[in-house]
Structures are given as structure tokens and as C-alpha cells.
């Protein structure tokens, strides 16, 4: 049991390394940029997969949590406190080591919140919002749940789009890199750090997968599946369904926020389109294609589709492709194309060899 649970994780690690070597060998290292971004988007998708596929709760506002993470981080790390240097609060923050000084493009001093502190704050904020929204929203079912989460996403989008501090339609740019190791190695920082960024993003994904795989095969996972199957029955058996649903909602929100933080640092900025409804629907469609309730299927489809989309293979039909995918999958293969049949076949194949 133990070996089979972690065999996919090992294969994922091998695949990540193999792809990097392949791009190196074929001289197409620029693919790594899109693969890194795809990894961050996949983080949102697998979190949503846990929520939709296992707990059975649809969320059409997950781009909202991504945006909460990204925008919090972007605002805090670009906020210049240099002119308020002598204020008591700023002094205190500086003493605690939360603030960091750097120079901008034109050489002027910028005193802003350290990216690590901003990241923690961003995730905490996303968790708090998920908690506050989740308690009333998760009591709803079906259409009501879908519309309520869609409403949440729309509110975040219109706040981001309508607020001057968030850069309105332009978004926030010149977000500094996220320092990982001493010596200027970090998330972001241009094409020279492409490889390290690629590995960092995928290690995050691997960590998330380890967490999710363990969660699914634990008491929590069984409880979630019982909620998906028959919530009333689960309740009657003594499963605290609302608690589990809230926990899953907050976990997936945190994953989305983390993805938002790092993608913002990687790109050096964030725009309101990251919070749009279409982005939320895109995550839902990726979970649908990957097969509701298959985090591996979701991860594979998310990587492939996001990579193609970011490389611009879908051209102006980008949104239409995702809409079409949604319809076709839901009409003909509601369990996803990497559904149970294919998985059973693969498992057989692995056993024979």
C-alpha cells in the first residue's frame, strides 16, 4: 500500500527532471518559463480538485483566492515606507525584521515589507476570507453554491478592477523577486534563473501532492468521500460534515493564494484578469477534464492545457477552447478523460511488467 501510494510522486519527480533535461538537450529552455507558470496554476487546480472531486463542493470563485494572494503580496512588497521611516509603527516593523530596504530601477531607496512576511500575510488573509465566506456559503448546495461562489469571485474582481491602490485595470507591476537562497537566488529574476525557478515551482507542486495524497488516504479523505456520496448519511454516521467542508475549502484557498503569491513574484506583477470569472471557470474546466476526484488526472491536464494556453497555441480562441472542453467533457465523459477505465488499464500494465 505504502509503495503504491508514493510511486506516482516519484514518477512526478522523475518526469520533472526529465522534462528539464529534455528542454536542455533540444535547446528549448524557453519552454521552462511556461512550464513554471503552469506549475503554479496547477497548484490552484489540484486544490480545487480536492474541493470539487472529493468534498463535492463546486467553487466558481477560486481565481478570487489566487488574486487575494497575489495582490496582497504585490501591494505589500511594492509599498514604499521610506518616507514614513520615523513613524513608530514602521520602526517597530523594521525592528522585527519584517521590512526590507532595496533600490529601485532609478536608484532611489525603497523600504517595503519583506516578501516572506508578505507571503505569510497573504496566505493568512486568504485563509481568513475563506473562513468567513466558507461558513455561510458551504451551507448552500447545487445552484445556490455555484452562484454564491461566482458572486464572491465577481466581488473580488470588481474590487480589484475598481480600486486605485490595486492599479485598477493596469494591475501592479515591478514586484521584486522572492528571495529563496542567499546570493540573489529567488522566484522571479529573469531568464538567468529559469531552471531554479522551474524546480522550485515543481517542488511546491510535489509538496502539495504529497500533502493531498496523504490527506485523501486518511480519515479526512474518507470523511470527504462520504460527504460527496451522501451528505445526510455521513452526518448520521457522526461525520462533522460542515467542519470537513470548511477545512477543505480553506485548504484549497490557501493553495490558490500560495500560487498567486509566487506567480506574482515570478512574473514581477499581477493584473485584474487573474481575478476574472473566466479564470475561475478555467480552473473548474481543468478539474472536470482531469476527472473529478483524480488529483493526478487534474495535475496532468492542468499542466498540458495551461502550457498550450500560455504558449498561445489556442490563439484568440483561448476562452472558447476551455468552454468547449467543459461542454464536451460534461456531455460525454463526466468522469474526465483520464477516468477510472484508463487508470485501471495503466495499473494492470504496471503490474504485468
Amino acid at each position, binding site marked *: 500500500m505504502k509503495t503504491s501510494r508514493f510511486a506516482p510522486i516519484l514518477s512526478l519527480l522523475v518526469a520533472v527532471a526529465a522534462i528539464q533535461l529534455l528542454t536542455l538537450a533540444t535547446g528549448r529552455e524557453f519552454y521552462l518559463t511556461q512550464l513554471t507558470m503552469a506549475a503554479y496554476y496547477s497548484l490552484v487546480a489540484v486544490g480545487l480538485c480536492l474541493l*470539487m472531486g472529493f468534498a*463535492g463542493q*463546486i467553487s*466558481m470563485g477560486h481565481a478570487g483566492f489566487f488574486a487575494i494572494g497575489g495582490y496582497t503580496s504585490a501591494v505589500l512588497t511594492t509599498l514604499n515606507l521610506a518616507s514614513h521611516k520615523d513613524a513608530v509603527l514602521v520602526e517597530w516593523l523594521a525592528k522585527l525584521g519584517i521590512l526590507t530596504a532595496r533600490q529601485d530601477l532609478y536608484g532611489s531607496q525603497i523600504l517595503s515589507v519583506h516578501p516572506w512576511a508578505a507571503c505569510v500575510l497573504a496566505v493568512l488573509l486568504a485563509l481568513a476570507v475563506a473562513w468567513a465566506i466558507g461558513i*455561510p*456559503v458551504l*451551507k*448552500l*448546495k*447545487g*445552484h*445556490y453554491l*455555484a*452562484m*454564491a461562489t*461566482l*458572486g*464572491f469571485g*465577481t*466581488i473580488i474582481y*470588481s*474590487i480589484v*478592477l*475598481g*480600486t486605485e491602490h490595486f492599479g485598477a485595470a493596469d494591475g501592479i507591476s515591478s514586484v521584486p523577486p522572492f528571495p529563496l537562497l542567499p546570493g540573489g537566488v529567488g522566484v522571479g529574476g529573469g531568464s538567468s534563473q529559469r531552471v531554479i525557478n522551474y524546480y522550485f515551482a515543481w517542488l511546491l507542486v510535489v509538496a502539495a501532492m504529497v500533502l493531498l495524497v496523504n490527506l485523501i488516504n486518511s480519515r479526512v479523505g474518507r470523511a470527504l468521500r462520504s460527504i460527496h456520496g451522501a451528505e445526510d448519511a455521513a452526518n448520521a454516521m457522526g461525520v462533522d460534515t460542515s467542519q470537513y467542508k470548511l477545512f477543505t475549502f480553506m485548504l484549497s484557498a490557501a493553495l490558490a493564494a500560495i500560487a498567486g503569491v509566487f506567480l506574482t513574484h515570478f512574473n514581477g506583477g499581477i493584473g485584474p484578469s487573474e481575478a476574472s*470569472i*473566466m479564470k475561475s*471557470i478555467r480552473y*473548474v*474546466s481543468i478539474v*472536470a477534464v482531469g476527472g473529478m476526484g483524480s488529483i493526478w488526472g487534474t495535475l496532468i491536464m492542468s499542466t498540458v492545457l495551461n502550457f498550450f494556453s500560455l504558449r498561445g497555441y489556442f490563439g*484568440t*480562441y483561448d*476562452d*472558447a477552447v*476551455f*468552454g*468547449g*472542453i*467543459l*461542454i464536451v467533457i*460534461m*456531455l460525454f465523459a*463526466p468522469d474526465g478523460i483520464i477516468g477510472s477505465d484508463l487508470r485501471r488499464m495503466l495499473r494492470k500494465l504496471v503490474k504485468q511488467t
Partner: protein
Amino acid sequence: MIELFFQYLVAGLTYGTIYAIVGIGFNIIYNTTGIINFAQGEFVMLGGMTAVSLQAFLPLPLAIFGAVLVTMIIGGLIEMTFIRWLVKPSVLRMIIITIGISILIREAALAIWGEGVRSLPYFTGNEISALSFGGVRVSPQVLWSLGFCSIVVLSLNLFFKYTMLGREMRACAANREAAALCGIPTKNMVTLSFVLSAGIGALAGCVVSPITYTQYNIGTGLAIKGFTVAILGGLGNSMAAVAAGFILGVLESFSIWVLPTAYKDTISISILLAMLFIRPSGLFGNREAMRLKDF
């Protein structure tokens, strides 16, 4: 001051009519199928856009008639291709399919009409012509849209109450299996409900187009507003949706007094969320009856 108050009121009522019509569209389909059609707002957009295109070579009334007809056909085709043959689909599946449909319609509209903002000419007069009611200036188009919407609501009411077809649809809504046993072709009733709600959506889209303008992406916003209205009135209750539409339109219009315009949409969504949390059966709905419904 008092004039300004009435000015906002009139603006609110104008938007309220279109929200009410979208809400009624939701209700018609919900009643016969038990599903919420997330592509409802797209029908309004299609109606307005098609009418603008037809108006280039047809007189205005004919263009509107043609646009409504085209949208009705599209509505029927959508039902027949995507929904008719599904056997007991789950709610989650239906939600995702109708969302997919709305995206496809929107992208098709973008490909056909582009990103430009379009509008029909005013039915009578032009942008600056106004009737004056004791200092309050009202565009004749507002009266047109109020009139059209009252006619739609009235005739729908008569249709459901007094015609055989309308009664069959209501039977289908009350109990689908029993209706089938009585020989009512329930599947055709579902198609008809899509055709009907596409038709009234398109008509509303044409009538308000001179005032509110039409763009390829107005559908999602309208769908959320329409759904808010449907919930406010109580899901499935078309007459209450009219009242709820006016309430929402007026509230939204007056919100400009205290909040920046950019946040106008958040008002209606906050109302929607509050209603869903506190009283999902709606302002005029019955809590006990709601519990029995499948949603």
C-alpha cells in the same frame, strides 16, 4: 433634490425591467427542468446584437421581430443539442454544461461582432428627446421598455393560465412524471421553455439596447443580476421576480449616491449573498415549500 430622487428612481426602474425579464427567464426554465440556465444573460446579448445587425437592411420593428425569432431558434437548438438527451444529469453537471454554453455563445459573439459597443436607435425621438413629468425628465425609451415588459409579463401570465400549452408546461413543472403519464410530451415542454425564455430575453435585449447598449460580454453580469432577482422573489415565482427586479434596479441606482460607480455591481451581489445566507426562499417565498424543492 426631489427631482434628482425621481431621476434615480426612473433609471432604477429601467434597469429593473431588464433584470426582471432575465429573472423570469431563469424561472421559466427552472420550473420545467429544475436547472438554472447560466447562459440566460447571453440570450439578452444575442437579441440586442442580432437586432442591430438586422436593422442595417430591415425596418426597426421587423429587425426586432427577426432578432427575437433567431434567438428563440438558438435557444431551442441549444436545448436539443446539449440537454434533451441527458438521462437524469446531476446538478453539478448541468451547471457546468450551461456555463460552457454561455462561454461558447460569448466567444462566438466576439468573433462575429467584435468588441465594439452597439445599440439600436431610439424607437421614438432620439437621445435628447424627453418627456417632462413635473420637472422629472424621462426618455420615451424608458416608457417603451416599461410598456414592452408589462406586455411580456401579462401575456406570459395569460399563456400559463389559460392556454392548453401553458397549462401543460405548468403540469410539467409541478410533477414531471405525472405529466408524462397524462400524455404530455415533457421533453418538448422543456424545449419550449428554452425557446420562450430565449425569446423574452432577446426582446428585453432589443428594447433596452438604445439606453444601456449591448456588448458581447454583458451576459455574465446580467445572469448574476437576473439570478439575484429570481432568488429575491423566490425561485420559480415569475410574478415576484418583477417586483424583485424593480427593487434591485432601484437599490442599485441609489447606491451611486453613497458608493463609487465602480462598485455598483457589488451591491447586487452582496444582496444575492445575503439573501442566500439568510432567506434562500426569497422575500415572497414560502420556507416550507422551499425545503421540498430540488435545487
